[in-house]
């Protein structure tokens, strides 16, 4: 593929830009427009009328966080149609993990087509760097990072470790209070 070069024309320095005063007036016009438009929107909202918001601020702890569609959030383990975890304990995610935050112990699966399954599957979210390699590495699509949960802090390091039932969503995570 040939490299395409796009020549960006430099802005010309005319007398008006050299004078700087015209540009200042232009800039002031821009900021004044924002100021008055936003003030109008704020006051419209304050009167209880509908309209565009006057600010783009998300007041996060009071209002819910807005996450992107492709945001990598807390891990989630997926199940097969029969309800058994999809994980086959191949240890690819544990191997690729740069933060070494995944611990898997394997056992024989009763289903002979699967051969292995995970006995325990722990993720230490205190060490996780949310790179998403484990999702990429998984050959059976058993792990996703789409739980849409980012408020993961806890009062001690032990509570940062999530085990398999918690990651599967079978057991709710109940952190210990200080």
């Amino acid at each position: 593929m040939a490299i395409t070069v796009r020549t960006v024309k430099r802005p010309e320095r005319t007398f008006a830009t050299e004078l700087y005063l015209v540009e200042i007036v232009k800039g002031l016009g821009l900021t004044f427009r924002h100021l008055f438009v936003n003030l109008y929107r704020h006051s419209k909202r304050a009167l209880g009328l509908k309209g565009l918001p006057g600010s783009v601020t998300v007041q996060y702890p009071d209002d819910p966080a807005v996450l992107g569609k492709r945001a990598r959030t807390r891990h989630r383990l997926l199940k097969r149609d029969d309800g058994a975890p999809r994980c086959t304990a191949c240890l690819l995610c544990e191997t690729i993990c740069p933060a070494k935050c995944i611990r898997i112990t394997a056992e024989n699966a009763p289903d002979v087509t699967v051969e292995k399954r995970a006995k325990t599957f722990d993720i230490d979210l205190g060490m996780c760097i949310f790179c998403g390699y484990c999702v990429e590495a998984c050959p059976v699509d058993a792990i996703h990072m789409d739980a849409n949960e980012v408020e993961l802090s806890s009062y001690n390091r032990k509570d940062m470790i999530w085990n398999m039932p918690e990651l599967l969503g079978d057991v709710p995570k109940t952190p210990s209070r200080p």
Partner: protein
Amino acid sequence: MTFPLPLNDVVFAVAKILFSILGVGLSIAGFLGWVERKQSAVMQDRIGANRASIFGFTVLGLFHPIADAIKLLTKEDFVPKGARKPLHGLAPIISLGCGMFCLAALPYGGVVDYAGRAWDLTPIALPMGVPLVLAALAFGVHGIVMAGYASGSNYGLLGAMRGAAQMIAYEVCLASALAGLLFVYGTLDFTEAVRWQVSHGVWGIFLQPLAFIIFLTAGTAVTKRVPFDLPEGESEIVGYHVEYSGMKFGMFMMTDFFESIVICGVITALFLGGWSIPFVDFPSLAGRSGLWGLWPVAAGALMVGSSVGKILLMLFLLMQVRWTLPRFRFDQVLDLGWKHLLPLALINFLVTVWVVYLWR
């Protein structure tokens, strides 16, 4: 002048000075902290400070200046080990004192006849008001240099040196921009200058638009606010007040706001017609009968309100400029001052002198 002065003269003089420093200076300076936050927030599509509350009421964040004041007053006043202690304490006082003097020398109103005598509404009426205010503004830089030197820190000294360099850049333009205008007015007194504008029916900004722009630019440099915030350098924390904490730091912050008010006050008095309002004749307004004989008082209040209102409008513009423009580099400020503003101001002065000479 007879001495001892009549008691009501002394009381009135003290009341005027207290009004200019407390009423205009401190209240507007406290208010400006809020305006700066909210105005910048609204024009940048943000909300701005809105968390300080008293019993759950936030009132658009208006309690933040109070919270700031409480914090600054109760904070530890830390003096670093290498600091020269007397100078370290003296610097903010010099800085703030100069700003306070300038506030008291501004004309807030003319002379009102009431209860058998004339009341001059200017706190400190001086025949040499303009040069004295300019001198006091220049002297305020001593506080900055002293602060940087006395704090025993290289960063503080760097900020002080920048402050001194900036002062060299703007101080000449500041005075020479006003030279032409004062030549036209034929006075160095603020009150006389306003009277000239009232009697000739034209404001200084229409006589000398170039001088207005030059003075506004140089005046912004005086206040050490953003297009020219070299002495403070908020973005890289190399300022003359890095070693200051508590209310000493608060005094430096207040000096900034005070100087903004002073610059806006000088602009109001010399360029925007001071207390005058178009199509309002104050002497005839004060001479009206009715209103229980309180028309003179009403006229005086209107004068003060008009000049303070103009000051507030100019402050609004300065705030907007502060959040619109990027910062000038060190050499750019000196270039701007010496290569552009000073020649323009001198040409403006020479042309003005010739025009006035030929006209007469």
